[in-house]
């Protein structure tokens, strides 16, 4: 995540993130323009080439983001609105990082066990619920999902060693 580099103020201004985001958007637009040129963005005997349409979308991305960047730079001194305070951002990371770890878990051992563990740990550590309650909710959601997808609707979700133990 961009623009959390001002620990002294313990908050990030809107205008800083605005410029940083627009710069990333500009880079994406430039990437589109570059690839459109590579593919050919003009005409050949078959009509418009593959890069004809994307070229303009990329150019518009670049132009719009430059306008946003310039607008942001002009307000750099005056605009003091706060994008996020450090304590708020910590709250965001409290769910974002575990969620990323959860997705890694899905990749490694299938979806059902990480789902139960994720809900259990999040409830117990963030929500301060008792071990029993947290584990029961996690297990309940996971078992419901298993019944719903694997048994009733027969839509296969990622599975790993634990599911193999019970024959799936």
């Amino acid at each position: 995540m961009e623009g959390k580099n001002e620990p002294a103020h313990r908050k990030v201004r809107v205008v800083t993130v605005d410029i940083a985001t627009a710069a990333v958007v500009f880079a994406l637009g430039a990437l589109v323009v570059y690839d459109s040129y590579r593919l050919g963005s003009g005409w050949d005997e078959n009509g418009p080439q593959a890069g004809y349409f994307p070229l303009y979308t990329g150019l518009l991305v670049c132009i719009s983001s430059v306008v946003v960047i310039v607008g942001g730079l002009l307000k750099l001194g005056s605009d003091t609105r706060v994008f996020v305070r450090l304590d708020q951002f910590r709250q965001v990371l409290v769910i974002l990082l575990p969620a990323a770890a959860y997705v890694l878990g899905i990749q490694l051992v299938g979806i059902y066990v990480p789902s139960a563990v994720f809900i259990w740990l999040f409830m117990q550590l963030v929500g301060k619920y008792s071990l029993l309650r947290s584990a029961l909710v996690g297990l309940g959601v996971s078992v419901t999902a298993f019944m719903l997808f694997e048994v009733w609707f027969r839509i296969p979700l990622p599975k790993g060693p634990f599911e193999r133990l019970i024959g799936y």
Partner: protein
Amino acid sequence: MEELNALFHGFTVALTPFNLMLMFVGIILGVIIGVLPGLGGANGVAILLPLTFAMPPASAIIMLSCIYWGALFGGAITSVLFNIPGEPWSVATTFDGYPMAQQGRAGEALTGAFTSSFIGALVAVVMFTFLAPLVADFALKFGPPEFFAVYLLTFCSFVGTGKGNPFKIIASMMLGFAMAAVGVDIVTGQLRLTFGFTELLSGFHFLVAVIGLFGIGEILLSMEEGLSFTGHGAKINPTIVLQTWAKLPRFWATSIRSCIIGCWMGIIPGGATPASFMSYGVARKVSRDGAKFGSGQLEGVVAPETAAHAAGTSALLPMITLGIPGSPTAAVLLGGLMIWGLQPGPLLFVEQKDFVWGLIASMYLGNLAGLIVVLTMVPLFAAILRVPFPIIAPVIVVICAIGAYTVKNNMLDVWMMVVFGAVGYVFKKLDYPLAPMVLALVLGDAAESAFRQAVLMSQGDLAVFWSNWLVGSMTTLALVLLFWPLISQGLARMRATRPSTA
């Protein structure tokens, strides 16, 4: 009355026990989705879409559209009881709905909201019934230039009607188009924007984007605010319902106005949310009790709810007849149609009569079912809202992950969902609108191929978009809308300088 015959045939399609059951299941799921943070209409329908793959298309669309109606109803519950708009279009409902709940009149506010939602939707469905076949018939004559002009109109109207920085709207929209271009180009077979990554061959799926942007993004925003719900209790009993119903006829003028605003704004994309605000604003100006608006006036609940529901319903008109969705949720429904092998557009009315009229019939029945469900089950839904966020948040993340995976059975999509979630969080905080991005991602390929065919017809001459009065007026209107922020600024300046110079 050919439409009426077709409609009765539609009722026979929709009125099977299986479909009726799906209708109620859909409504209940929809209200739950509308009530929970992080599971809006678009995202909820996206997650539940894979469950319908096994059903016949008519049943599937009935269930999904009922989820949509349910979400529209559900937004009102959170607005009135918790002062938290469950959906953007119910923001205006909080202005008078929450004060009513504070005064202990939550039941009255909810009854008013649900009933006027129902009326708004009903009027829009009647309009739909008679207008849709005409529009479809008209659109049968469309060629590629006309279709591209309609796409152009759709996207330009985001700039023209959108609030906020027009350049952010354009940037967000064009990123959507760029993402739609990723993968194999259908015309030339070349790989576009994959940069050698084989994982990108099949491109970005818009359902994954929707689940990430709206679902995970919303969860991140809610976490940041450290939400703790404090809500008012709601009692709805038959006496309150009847008492409220007795009051509603007084607001007939407001209702009619709101229906017209809603139907009109719904057909134009971006509809329901501006429609609800506009309707509230107009009602406040025109009403005799206008000065009291904001302090808990029933009329202030009726106006935005009628318009939002009318707009939400009529947003399906361009989706079915032209293949152009009027809202992100309609876009997800459109994506569903394509997955079931149905090509939305004017031909649908010719080739898939059962499907189309079954859907229209289910709009009548679904809204009636919705009214019954929400009036009887409000306490249950309010109880769901009281489930603390530390329980809801991880469960929703799990549901989103399942939803993202089932789109294509692809693990990379689950990672993309997390990335889209972070993007959604930043974009939402910086006022980059997400709806144009999603619509561009859905319509990108169709818009591009219409554009290519059109310029191929004219050998690259852009004058093809002015080649007859129809396409010419649409293109011109689109450009006016595109430059509307500039035009309106110019007009305002002229108005401001005139008195001083005169």
